[in-house]
């Protein structure tokens, strides 16, 4: 799992309660292929979304992003489309777990989504969690990624982390 230090890209803005049926409609869950899933990402609300995304771009959204299903296909589709990270006021908990497990960076900020707009160019420093809006000349802080989640990422992902924990127990 790569440990990115910097993200830069343009913003795709969404509202509150963006749910997993919107992110990837269930009828496409008959595949696990990231590219195929990505081709249907957000298609109900933003047809052709995947074609607009350049690698590294960012989703900025309101509260409760990723609510609904446990489908890991949701962050897989978002990441497969080329999105590097999602900044939101809050995340649904299963989506949060799944994103860390699949390498999609999540950042929490209550105020940044109110100021950042569609098309803004952002630069995000992941070690400090600071978002620089180059289009508006504004800066925003995000909540530090919890230590446990940083340990997961540092271990190389959930499976290496769990295998190491398990080995330590002598099982």
């Amino acid at each position, binding site marked *: 799992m790569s440990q990115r230090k910097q993200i830069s890209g343009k913003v795709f803005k969404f509202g509150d*309660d963006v*749910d997993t*049926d*919107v992110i990837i*409609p*269930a*009828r496409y*869950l*008959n*595949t*696990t292929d990231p590219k195929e899933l990505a081709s249907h990402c957000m298609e*109900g*609300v933003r047809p052709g979304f995947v074609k607009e995304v350049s690698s590294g771009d960012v989703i900025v959204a309101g*509260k*409760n992003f990723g*609510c*609904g*299903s*446990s*489908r*890991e*296909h949701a962050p*897989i589709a978002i990441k497969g489309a080329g999105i590097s990270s999602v900044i939101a006021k*809050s995340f*649904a*908990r*299963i989506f949060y*777990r*799944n994103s860390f*497990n*699949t390498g999609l960076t999540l950042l929490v900020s209550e105020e940044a989504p109110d100021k950042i707009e569609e098309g803004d160019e952002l630069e995000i420093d992941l070690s400090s969690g600071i978002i620089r809006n180059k289009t508006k000349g504004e800066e925003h802080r995000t909540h530090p990624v919890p230590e*446990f989640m940083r340990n997961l990422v540092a271990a190389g*992902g*959930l*499976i290496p982390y*769990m*295998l190491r*924990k*398990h080995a330590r127990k002598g*099982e």
Partner: protein
Amino acid sequence: MGMTITEKILAVHANLDRVRPGDMIMARVDMALGNDITAPIAIEVFEKAGVGKVFDRDKIALVPDHFAPNKDIKSAEQCKLMREFARKYGITHYWEQGEMGIEHILLPEQGVVVPGDLVIGADSHTCTYGALGAFSTGVGSTDLAAAFITGTAWFRVPESMKFIFTGKRGKWVYGKDLILYTIGRIGVDGALYRAMEFTGPTIEELPMADRLTMCNMAIEAGGKSGIIAPDAITEEYVRDRAERPYTFYASDADAPYVEEIEFDVPGIEPQVAFPFLPENAKGISEVGDIAIDQVVIGACTNGHLEDMRIAASILKGKKVAKYVRAIIIPGTRRIYTECLKEGLIELFMESGAIVSTPTCGPCLGGYMGVLAEGERCVATTNRNFVGRMGHVRSEVYLANPAVAAASAITGKISSPDEVIYVQVKRDTIRKAR
């Protein structure tokens, strides 16, 4: 300070004397569940890890329910992948199509999950089993793979919210209405990251099917889990079914709750959750005139035998409205068979309804009842997001089985009282002639 029932179950499974909200723990799981759309990713991740064996072949449950009987070639391949994994690793709790049921109805029915368990499932409605007094929560496929290998999962101990229900339920008011009302009150993220503890005299009298329905929808308020303290009703349900020994836990009197909310149950009408969020709940009397095209009665929320009986009591002797489809899906093989024995299948067929083998199918717009543009469905399912059951410009209204059945007859969202009245009126006119 004491612990909540949720904290106690987590502590025991983490081999800790106590836990507090916010603690990060690693806990043993009693059951790790996957289905035909979530297990494939878990299996890929598992095989890639190269461990070569599962932690315990008795503690993994695999159910082909979402796109089975196979919706298309790709779905058939996913079911095949899961089947082959079950055979290769000797998974005890694998049900083939024909044996299976909708996972969250099947596992309690078969005694596969029991009070005091810690259960994870790669399905958001895994929170259902909290109705048995277990800690049960949805996770992703990678989490499931990690559990296949280690038999454990990591958790942040959640804060608990207490929901206190007092008073008798009115006519046509069920567990479904209590939970829709609750989500309407607190919103789709009102219980975000929290354990929802349903308590109070109303809950203490609530039948198990209604408890399962309530806990099923904890996720729709953002809840990590839902739970109802086990009692005599739980004992009655699990006693002859449980595959394993079980433990009853209860919250201490001085257990900490981040919030407590009280509900006056007699004031709660049958609820209808309008598109496009489960929190848009309105009382049936406020619904107005809304014509519909389809009704779905079933799903992990309301696919129980009790739900089938309620639907049958409304549909008896009546017909589904012209140009309306009513799709009825008994939750498991056993429930379907019981419906057959009780004459309910014949009753449903006579009324012009469609009766399906157990499947999640239409709930998530998979198949077996997908909606076209502009169509509306009253469903006993648990979600009504944009495009949930089909076209992005179709609509889903969530309700209990009685409201759904009544709506199938009238062709618009209706209270069961409207339908019963019609019957009484017809009888009165017939007698007068």
